[in-house]
């Protein structure tokens, strides 16, 4: 990747990570772990890849994004705010009475949110539906969706995988956030959905793997995805849950919990230090 662009994206991702911590801390609840693990991917999608216009969020030919793992809304909201879909100050009101930003994404009230999600397993079906609509209309847009690795345990995910494979939805890209953790612990201990890559391949998908915290790897994966025809694409990203905040990293305890004041300070200090080093 162009080194200028890489630096820009890294800074943007660092900013988004700070916003995530700010928002969850302000709300005193929410899901930091899985938001931090997708921060770089969201940054790449919204700042280097997707055809969207924050001033015209319902633009007809826009690329669509569905956060199938809807609990990671703080990640999406922070990205949308940074991209200009709404004011960053909205993040401070996350999850409060009267707030635009709901605990889980609400397409009726939040500009830039293309699908309401929160119940795991449903987003990928809606994304496949949008991709099918694009095919019917011969529209050029792409549909991106991010799923959790725990989310793969929902049977509906595989019904959607079958449908997308059968209908050759090559305008659909599903990113699997393989951070190895769900609520009750390691995905391999709870009820293993492994192997992930072979399963998607078996349903007729083109499968790509990438490092979720390396923009060279991310760019390479999305470039490859772009070229695939007659198959939906699954990008399985190896990620670190809680990435960027030392005490949250690889710790299932930080799935859905807000930091206290002291932890907040430490998290922000770490993120600011990382930003300054860029």
């Amino acid at each position, binding site marked *: 990747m162009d080194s200028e662009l890489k630096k820009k994206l890294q800074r943007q991702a660092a900013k988004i990570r700070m916003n995530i911590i700010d928002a969850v801390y302000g*709300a*005193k*609840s*929410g899901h930091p772990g899985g938001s931090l693990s997708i921060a770089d991917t969201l940054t790449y999608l919204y700042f280097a890849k997707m055809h969207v216009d924050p001033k015209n969020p319902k633009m007809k030919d826009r690329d669509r994004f569905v956060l199938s793992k*809807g609990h990671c809304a703080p990640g999406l909201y922070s990205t949308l705010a940074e991209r200009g879909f709404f004011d960053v100050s909205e993040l401070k009101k*996350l*999850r*409060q*009475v*009267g*707030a635009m*930003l*709901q*605990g*889980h994404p*609400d397409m009726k009230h939040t500009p830039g949110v293309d699908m*309401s*999600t*929160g*119940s*795991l*397993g449903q987003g990928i079906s809606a994304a496949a539906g949008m991709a099918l609509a694009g095919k019917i209309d011969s529209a050029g847009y792409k549909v991106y969706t991010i799923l959790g690795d*725990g*989310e793969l*345990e*929902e*049977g509906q995910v595989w019904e959607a995988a079958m449908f997308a494979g059968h209908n050759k939805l090559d305008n659909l890209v599903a990113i699997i956030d393989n951070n190895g953790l*769900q*609520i*009750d612990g390691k*995905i391999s201990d*709870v*009820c293993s*959905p492994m192997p992930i890559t072979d399963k998607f391949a078996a349903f007729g998908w083109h499968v790509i793997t990438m490092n979720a915290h390396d923009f060279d790897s991310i760019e390479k994966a999305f470039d490859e995805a772009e070229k695939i025809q007659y198959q939906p694409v699954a990008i399985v990203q190896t990620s670190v849950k809680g990435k960027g905040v030392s005490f949250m990293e690889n710790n299932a305890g930080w799935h859905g919990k807000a930091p206290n004041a002291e932890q907040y300070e430490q998290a922000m200090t770490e993120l600011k230090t990382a930003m300054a080093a860029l």
Partner: protein
Amino acid sequence: MADIIKKATRDSYGEALVELGKVHDDLLVLVADLADATKVEGFKKAYPERFFDCGIAEANMMGIAAGLAAAGKKVFASSFAMFAAGRAYEIVRNSIGYPHLPVKIGATHAGISVGEDGASHQCCEDIALMRTIPGMTVINPSDDIEAKAAVFAAMDIDGPVYIRFGRLAIPVINGFDGYKFEVGKGVTLKEGADVTIIATGLLVCEALEAAKTLEADGISARVINIHTIKPIDEDIIIKAAKETGLLITAEEHSVIGGLGSAVADVVTASTPVPVVKIGVNDVFGHSGPAPELLKEFGLSAENIVKTVKASMSLKK
């Protein structure tokens, strides 16, 4: 006044399961990646070999529970109400309800009091869904004591049972002398002659408070706790209809299909009197702290008082 003890009924559920696990050494518990939130974590720790995490797969979990029960096992299956009753509805109906298998469903995080997670997780339809299934017992406990009693009682029911628990800590109100939990039997918590407030779940406490305020304003309100929505206690409802001539129902659930509808079903057939329903008025919830949301959606003593006063003129 003694300090009010508050406890979430999901905690009561978790504790009761550990107790049950002691008595029934063949009891199994299933969960769908929510061991701590649904409080079955205690059972998991105490009896790891009798605990199975099904992963984030609620529909399959209900099917597994059905199979276990069909093979003679005693089983509780747990998730949030949204996913236990909602996501898995048709499996519960066809694999558990239709064959009348004794699967016990422990559904936590019911209603608007889920709070910050917002509408996608605030299930206000579960009572309606579950009560339409023939043979399903539906219980919505009003506090810690009743929640535990319901779990123990469910164990002895030879058929499917759905028990609804909450996330929010609520006052313990049933610690009085003579409290007895009987499936299908309502509890008259306060006598009254002018109106009857029929409440369930966390609204029972609010109904008691409302009755006190009303008393001071010269309205004698009877308060009935209906913990078992199905089979419902028809006798206590008909008696209240005859004696007070006006029924106000209160529940943390949609006004469509819940307690209010069940009560109306009872009286329209035999003793038609006005039934005024307090509940979630056919809208989705939203994010916010649970206590604020309960007020906003009118699930409060204050709104019960207001509704009673506004409804008194309906009496013939």
